[in-house]
């Protein structure tokens, strides 16, 4: 019973190369009122998880695509009407009293990184009201149109690392046909699309922290998530559990594999004495927290020093594009952020990080980390990174070999800050052993572009910057 003012809610286009999205949660059920711009549902794409605001005010009359389903961009998801609610046969909205249960497990998520941790993430969806009686499965049966990728096109695209979204389509409704993509590849079109791919980065923490009080993820992903979307259903063996991979996990899997297949990964490590940083941080902390509500974490200092140092090492901040080397006069700094409950990892980007002072960096990083965890990032905020920092040190790890976020050329790992006996010189120039806060920092770089000596010099410069941090330097 659509009223004459029915509004359709469609799967939004979340970035150029995103062609589909998965409904992770309906925040409003059929029959519930919703205001314009009020969050209506949560979706997950291979780039970001985000909330979709309601396009208008009214009653949710019909939900056409259920939670867990993946549909093409533009698919009608729901109908909102200004009139009365949909006809009878409706489930009561879920009882809010059933919600808090799920929150408990999220509590531990705190200690994981230096990053500010937001309050507990939204509870798991209370079992959604049973699918509405609407028989029409929501999705149009015909696969025509530019966003539909046929099996053979998908295979050729992945074999050649081509984004079908960038291939001009001549099929029905602009669909990319097998011939289109083959001639696109034959014509020597760039294998890697110019716009940086989503830096869905998954760096170090391959294993859960050794002895540390177990951080959140109660349900880590199953042991070996193979990247290929196996068409045959996987059967669970005795004692095993099988669950579907969400879009983000698939994206991470694909990206990690592709990065290793693309770059020649080499890791160099360096030990940095952070005595001065520790001292300055102690001084700044109260002021930052009181006046600005942000925490000057060690990561912020490292990020600030990195942005500064990268200006002198354009190749480390650069990329190989086809057979050219691209360098920039800016630094877009990506930060690997783990999502609550081990649900994945995302790399929001602080744009033009070289222009931020310490406070600016602290604010920017706090902001993106928080919004990453609250699923409020926009696709633009996870794209365009030129260098990435990952910080598994919060778990006590002292070394790692992260994977580069393509098409960048390097990724910096920061590890646990540990007090260690350290040989220093006293005022008389004599060697003595002192207790110093030492942080291991790694640079994993693409040896195709970055030579070992260059990486060594970069790390050396970075260390000098951190070890000689002046009180007035921000």
């Amino acid at each position, binding site marked *: 019973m659509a009223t004459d003012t029915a509004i359709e809610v469609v799967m939004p286009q979340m970035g150029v190369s995103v062609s589909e999205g998965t409904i992770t949660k309906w925040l409003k059920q059929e029959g519930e009122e919703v205001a314009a711009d009020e969050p209506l549902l949560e979706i997950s794409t291979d780039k970001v998880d985000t909330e979709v605001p309601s396009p208008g005010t009214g009653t949710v009359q019909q939900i056409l695509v259920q939670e867990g389903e993946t549909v093409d961009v533009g698919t009608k998801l729901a109908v909102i009407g200004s009139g009365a609610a949909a006809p009878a046969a409706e489930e009561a909205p879920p009882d809010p009293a059933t919600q808090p249960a799920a929150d408990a497990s999220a509590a531990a998520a705190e200690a994981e990184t230096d990053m500010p941790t937001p309050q507990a993430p939204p509870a798991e969806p209370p079992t959604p009201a049973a699918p509405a009686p609407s028989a029409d499965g929501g999705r149009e049966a015909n696969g025509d149109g530019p966003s539909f990728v046929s*099996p*053979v096109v998908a*295979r050729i695209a992945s074999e050649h690392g081509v984004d079908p979204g960038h291939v001009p389509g001549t099929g*029905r409704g602009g669909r990319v*046909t*097998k011939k289109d993509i083959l001639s696109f590849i034959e014509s020597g079109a760039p294998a890697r699309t110019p716009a940086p791919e989503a830096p869905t980065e998954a760096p170090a923490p391959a294993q859960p922290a050794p002895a540390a009080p177990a951080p959140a993820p109660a349900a880590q992903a199953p042991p070996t998530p193979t990247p290929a979307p196996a*068409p045959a259903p996987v059967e669970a063996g005795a004692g095993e559990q099988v669950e579907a991979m969400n879009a983000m996990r698939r994206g991470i899997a694909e990206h990690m594999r592709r990065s290793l297949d693309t770059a020649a990964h080499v890791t160099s490590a360096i030990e940095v004495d952070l005595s001065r940083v520790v001292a300055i941080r102690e001084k700044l902390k109260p002021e930052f927290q009181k006046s600005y509500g942000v925490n000057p974490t060690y990561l912020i200092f490292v990020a600030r020093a990195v942005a500064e140092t990268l200006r002198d090492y354009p190749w480390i901040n650069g990329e190989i594009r086809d057979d050219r080397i691209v360098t920039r006069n800016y630094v877009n700094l990506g930060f690997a952020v783990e999502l609550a409950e081990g649900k994945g990892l995302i790399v929001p980007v602080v744009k033009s990080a070289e222009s931020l002072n310490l406070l600016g960096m602290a604010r920017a990083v706090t902001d993106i980390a928080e919004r990453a965890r609250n699923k409020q990032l926009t696709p633009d905020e996870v794209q365009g990174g030129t260098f990435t920092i990952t910080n598994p040190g919060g778990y006590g790890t002292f070394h790692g070999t992260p994977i580069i976020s393509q098409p960048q050329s390097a990724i910096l790992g920061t590890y646990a800050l540990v007090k260690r006996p350290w040989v220093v010189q006293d005022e008389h120039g004599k060697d003595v052993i002192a207790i110093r806060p030492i942080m291991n920092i790694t640079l994993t770089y693409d040896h195709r572009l970055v030579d070992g000596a260059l990486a060594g010099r970069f790390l050396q410069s970075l260390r000098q910057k951190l070890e000689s941090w002046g009180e007035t330097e921000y």
Partner: protein
Amino acid sequence: MAEKTYLQAISDGLRQEMRRDKRVFVIGEDVGVYGGAFKVTLGFQEEFGPWRVIDSPLSETAIVGGCTGAAIMGMRPVAEMQFADFISCAWDQLVTVSAKQRYRAGTPVPIVVRLPSGGGFSGGPFHSQNPESSFAHIPGLKCVCPATPEDAKGLLVSAIEDPNPVLYFEHKHLYRRIKAEVPDERYTTPIGKARIHRGGDDVSVITWGAMVYTADEAAQQLENDGVSVEIVDLRTVLPWDKAAVLESARKTSKVLVLHEDTHTGGFGAEIAATIAEEAFEDLDAPIKRVTAPDTPVPFSPPLEKAFIPQVDDVVAGLRDLAEY
């Protein structure tokens, strides 16, 4: 080598085998004195005598049952159903006895059942059917469906040689319409091997029997639009040449399965399912089926024309795939 009709090719092949091998005999309704409803065995009784060209009573059960027994005793019977449609009367003998005898007892049952099948001449519901998919579902049987005179002879020889029951579907509409060169000497056409009737790059048609010619006409029309159509003539429905079909599917990535039999459960469904299972990642369009609708074959000529897939239907299906 001489130009022969499809019917002559069958007749000559059969005669050649009977001259060559005394174990081969013919049995059916009116196959002797009358020479068969379609005159395939015309003159056979004169040449081979009434004991090798047997006019049977009007009982398909008796014909197939008798052949099965004779085959077990070492003969090579070739039965004729007057119309393929009547084979339903012999279902039990064929499916329960002949098809399973070798599995149960180890005794080969080298019988051939010739089945004049197909429509196109207003034969109505009892004289026009293409029941090959019903039998393609029966392990122990083989089903061949030649489209050309050359294959008609070669597959008949293979069918007689084969140690299993072979259903030989000969399309009535091809009998006198189709003429082509047929080698004079004895030769076999392998059972289970498809034939590329026409090579092409853009769309594949998988078909057999009379529909090969329908597909060919459609392909010629498409050629004028610059669409290159490959036609795979399956020749044998059971066992069928999966490799050839998959190869063509992988080449063009767009497949149309065409058969004269009705739609639901037709053999095209098996082909489509296999392509989807084994060549999914090579597909650029949904697999399309062009078949007769799920009704009995109508008598009325306009209705029968609407029933049997026509060149225009195939052209429309191919266009749809080409433009997809």
